[in-house]
């Protein structure tokens, strides 16, 4: 893909309160990015972007509130490159249902938790997306459904007509788990988003 080898090395934070943060870290290291685990507000400094991993969104919310991390995380995600997968996508959305819960509200989208069913309904699909390079494998685990997106949101992939990979300015969100596949295109797309912002002098 197009990540240039002479670019300065990026540091990406991974929210490491709970979930599959280690899988994201492994992918990032593999594509040549420095990783910083984030569990406290002060650890949000010195990173070029942040990943909110898969896990349990309710657990994330409790820990964010208790550790005084909710507001710092919200203000980071409102302006800096942030990528959420599954529970991370739920956290980024403006509206969450099934049940209703708080969220960072930085992505103009409505997300319904566990909308495809329980674990027994989890599945791996391979389908075309807007990313170049052919069909993409997508691992859905107790996945949420994006039921609605705002006009500013770019839809990069869909499943049965519902968006599953979306971007709004500095925010990227997937209802599936690219960190559990071998295909690195979604993570590389996120790196590109960071690079573009750097090039436009808007870090």
């Amino acid at each position, binding site marked *: 893909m197009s990540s240039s080898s002479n670019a300065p090395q990026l540091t990406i934070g991974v929210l490491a309160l709970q979930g599959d943060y280690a899988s994201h870290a492994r992918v990032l290291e593999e594509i040549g990015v420095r990783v910083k685990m984030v*569990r406290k507000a002060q650890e949000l400094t010195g990173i070029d972007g942040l990943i909110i991993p898969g*896990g349990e969104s309710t657990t994330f919310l409790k*820990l964010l509130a208790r550790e005084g991390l909710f507001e710092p995380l919200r203000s980071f995600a409102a302006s800096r490159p942030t990528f959420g997968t599954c529970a991370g996508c739920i956290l980024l959305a403006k509206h969450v249902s*099934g049940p209703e819960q708080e969220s960072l509200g930085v992505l103009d989208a409505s997300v319904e*938790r566990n909308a495809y069913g329980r674990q*027994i309904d989890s599945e*791996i699909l*391979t389908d075309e997306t807007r990313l170049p390079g052919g069909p993409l494998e997508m691992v859905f685990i107790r996945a949420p459904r994006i039921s609605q997106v705002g006009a500013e949101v770019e839809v990069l992939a869909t499943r049965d007509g519902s968006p599953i990979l979306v971007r709004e300015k500095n925010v990227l969100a997937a209802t599936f*788990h690219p960190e559990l596949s071998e295909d690195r295109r979604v993570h590389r797309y996120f790196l590109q988003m960071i690079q573009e912002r750097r090039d436009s002098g808007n870090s």
Partner: protein
Amino acid sequence: MSGHKNNGSGGHGLRLKVGLAEMLKGGVIMDVTDAKQAEIAEKAGAVAVMALERVPAQIRAEGGVARMASIKKIKEIMSASSIPVMAKCRIGHFAEAQVLQELGVDFIDESEVLTPADELHHVDKHAFKTPFVCGARDLGEALRRIAEGAAMIRTKGEAGTGDVVHAVKHLRQIVKDMRQLTVMSEEELYAAAKEHRAPYELIRMVAKSGKLPVPNFSAGGIATPADAALVRQLGAEAVFVGSGIFMSDSHSFAPAEEAEVRARAIVRATTFFDDPKVLAEASEECTGAMKGLAVAALDASSMMQTRGW
């Protein structure tokens, strides 16, 4: 849909099963016996709940044959929870496992806490779409369960005691067994497979990576925030807390507020397991712990961990 899908119990199936286990990492899975406790657990930040008729401490105290929980109970807990729900079947009782899969529970624990249904065979877990977690005391036992299709391993410890000593023992044993494999020569690995009574392919996989091919959690006697941090530092990727949250002793439940405070403190300690400052705060928040039973004072016949092979 134009895309290709695969959710069977083949290679993709195992990836989906292990995938859910990955999502639970760094979290606390709590035993609950009704909808009210399930709500407390979720509110405290549990990543999943284990739906039970009786927690291990009660099973131990009351005796009798312990079986899969009643369907009504499991359904009640499932409808009260937005997080994954696990339930236990007896060792080897594949019909109970079929029932649990039919109900749609997210994970099945083939558990030594219940009275075993088969003295020789564990459930063929490859035959199910629902992922399984199984207990182990050493690497060989862990790999035998993985060979049968388990998507997550937990230490057995000694459930229902509130005494962490055997969770520590089993975790240290598994970690030590794995470390030894990483420095062995090819021919030594064949002998190690024989010694551990485990498939050579899995032994070789562990020798290469230094870890289990599925997530490695800890269970059995964890009762305080410091207990959770201890097993996390020893290498457990998440913790199960059974009787330690909702019981004050083997017969009576702790008041709801106390259970909630305990649950919250254990969640915090599990996330910040390597940060003594947060750990001290979590320990201070946590009022009381179950009275417990010292494992050293138990006679062999009342041990749950020796069930299964």
